[in-house]
């Protein structure tokens, strides 16, 4: 073993782009100040509102799982700045390939967050229209979708929607994945394809430091952003709990992609403040001291402190936002409980786009079998006679 520790390993703070300190003070960065210069107080309050609402969604969904209304939930707690900052930098025509924790990005793409919960309740695999929102379905097999994003970006190139200078036409693709995913072969293959094709795709890696129970040190000996240059993909490390910095580096990468400058690897250094999912128990593998140290870097507190110090967070705004969050919570609870039950025969729908005789035969048999209980005699499993 070498002697590499946190100062040079994958958990180092070195080289992180930061525009807001954990204490909420605006710091200057020569390369990125201009990227946020147009964000006025209204815009900053908008980012704050996004993060507060997404966190409320997180809280409600977790509670619904505890009440048995959801089978599972994957919290985004602590990653709001990484997701809102990057998501708000996107243009309407851009396309996003999320992993499964990108509820904040979903929100920025206009996806009603209750649609995300259909997946976790088990009524479908994601209720939103992936094409209409430019936000594809969640991908649960880690890293697979980095290739889909790259292929999509190769299609964007073939459509001539890169480098035209038309801000409504030039299109970028963003793929979200985590620290654990960087070990997957598909992610390396995606970087190869993106690099040699100069594809307009942004690799947005949220290093939240934990792949379920495995720390980032299990995946790498060096900062994850170092993965990019070996493939010929420029990379940048950003403080993922700083919504301004995340916005700025994403905006830069998107502009590079849209203008024909090719792919970028962004490592957003953040922290998964909650469990991996509601089935996980982080007390088995990490310390409360570590969790506490990251609570001091809470992304929402950071922006709130900043706005308060500038006198730009009025009581009226805060109260209005609290009421909006309460209403969202109420709507989430009502919507989830009213999601209904999918029809058993729906399992045969959309297996193929065109008729498939085996599926049709099995469906016909199943429906006839179900219909044979139409008199209500079937009361439960094992009551078939």
């Amino acid at each position, binding site marked *: 073993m070498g002697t590499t520790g946190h100062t040079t390993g994958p958990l180092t703070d070195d080289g992180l782009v930061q525009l807001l300190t954990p204490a909420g003070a605006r710091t200057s960065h020569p390369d990125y100040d201009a990227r946020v210069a147009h964000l006025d107080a209204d815009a900053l309050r908008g980012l704050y509102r996004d993060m507060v609402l997404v966190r409320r969604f997180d809280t409600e969904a977790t509670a619904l799982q505890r009440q048995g209304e959801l089978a599972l939930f994957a919290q985004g707690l602590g990653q709001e700045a990484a997701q809102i900052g990057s998501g708000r930098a996107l243009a309407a025509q851009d396309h996003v390939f999320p992993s499964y924790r990108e509820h904040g990005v979903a929100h920025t793409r206009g996806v009603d967050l209750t649609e995300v919960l259909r997946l976790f309740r088990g009524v479908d695999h994601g209720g939103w229209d992936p094409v209409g929102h430019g936000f594809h379905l969640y991908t649960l097999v880690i890293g697979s979708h980095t290739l889909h994003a790259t292929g999509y970006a190769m299609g964007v190139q073939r459509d001539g929607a890169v480098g035209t200078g038309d801000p409504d036409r030039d299109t970028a693709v963003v793929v979200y994945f985590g620290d654990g995913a960087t070990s997957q072969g598909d992610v390396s293959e995606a970087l190869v394809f993106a690099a040699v094709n100069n594809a307009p795709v942004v690799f947005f890696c949220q290093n939240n430091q934990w792949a379920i129970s495995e720390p980032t040190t299990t995946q790498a000996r060096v900062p994850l952003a170092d993965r990019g240059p070996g493939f010929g993909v420029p990379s940048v490390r950003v403080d993922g709990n700083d919504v301004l910095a995340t916005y700025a580096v994403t905006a830069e990468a998107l502009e590079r992609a849209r203008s024909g400058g090719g792919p970028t690897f962004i490592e957003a250094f953040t922290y998964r403040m909650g469990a991996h999912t509601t089935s996980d128990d982080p007390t088995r593998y990490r310390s409360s001291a570590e969790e506490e140290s990251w609570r001091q870097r809470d992304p929402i507190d950071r922006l709130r402190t900043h706005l308060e110090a500038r006198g730009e967070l009025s009581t009226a705004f805060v109260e209005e936002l609290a009421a909006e969050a309460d209403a969202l919570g109420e709507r989430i609870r009502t919507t989830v409980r009213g999601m209904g039950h999918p029809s058993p025969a729906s399992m045969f729908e*959309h297996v193929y786009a*065109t008729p498939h005789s085996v599926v049709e035969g099995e469906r016909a048999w199943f429906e006839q079998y179900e219909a044979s209980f139409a008199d209500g005699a079937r009361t439960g499993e094992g009551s078939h006679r």
Partner: protein
Amino acid sequence: MSTTTDVATPRTTETPGGVQRLTFAKAINLGLRRALEQDDKVLLMGEDIGKLGGVFRVTDGLQKDFGAHRVVDTPLAESGIIGTAIGLAMRGYRSVCEIQFDGFIFPAFDQITTQLAKMHYRSKGRITLPVVIRVPFGGGIGAVEHHSESPEALFAHTAGLRVVSPSSPVEAYTMIQQAIASPDPVLFFEPKGRYWEKGDVDLDAAPSGPLLDKARIVRAGTDVTLVAYGPTVQTALKAADTAAQEGTSIEVVDLRALSPLDTATVAESVRRTGRCVVVHEAPVLYGTGAEVAARITEECFFHLEAPVLRVGGFHAPYPVAKIEHDYLPGLDRVLDAVDRALAF
């Protein structure tokens, strides 16, 4: 490095027409050429398919005529080929991916079975992925290991994929065009041992005839139904010729598709003959023959004069080339199974 891909499509020389005597490989080549000409969204992707024309020359000359942005030499990464083809399909492109050899498909297994197969289903029909995966498969060419395998059942077992295998040049020419037109993903298994065999192909015929989900009786008979697909159809026809000299009338059914399996055509035949033998190069354990046997037994139980028999590969890795013909189901093993079925 260019920042955008050149979108201009160089026009091809006129595709040859009329009835021509072509090798299996050339028939596929001309089917691909026709698809490329008819739809700008059709792309070919694979390793060495450009200047080299593929290791079997199936894509010979296509990059020269259609450009490197449509006939794409990819990095050596099978998962990457299929994964990017999925993304391209989401953007409206129809990729025909070449997996260089059967044994090289497994790095792409997740992308094919977990991603490609399920996307239409999980998106509730909002996303279609018209991706064709061409796989030269099967043995008999004296190759080194991993170059002679028959993994088709692994894909037929996966809902969401269509799995087909042509058995002749004319079928190959037609079926590759039908596969490209299909909105569903298609695994297209090409019997590489037959690439150099010739047949007459009407190049002007529109891709009609039986669709990708229909079996076909390729030789009528009365005593035994011999079921085959891909490379073993020719073996089955030879067996029928030989058996005819001994007074046995064999009906040969070419399955053409493994998913969906056209049980109806096979069952109709077996109800007439009362006997059924299935032959494929893939191992018989959990193979296509097992599925055919189970379904025919269910549907034709009272018509059967003998159990459905299977002839195929053994439950061993594909052997070294010097003994591969002892592994493959050749003429003698097929006739032996026919005799056993008749002796019941």
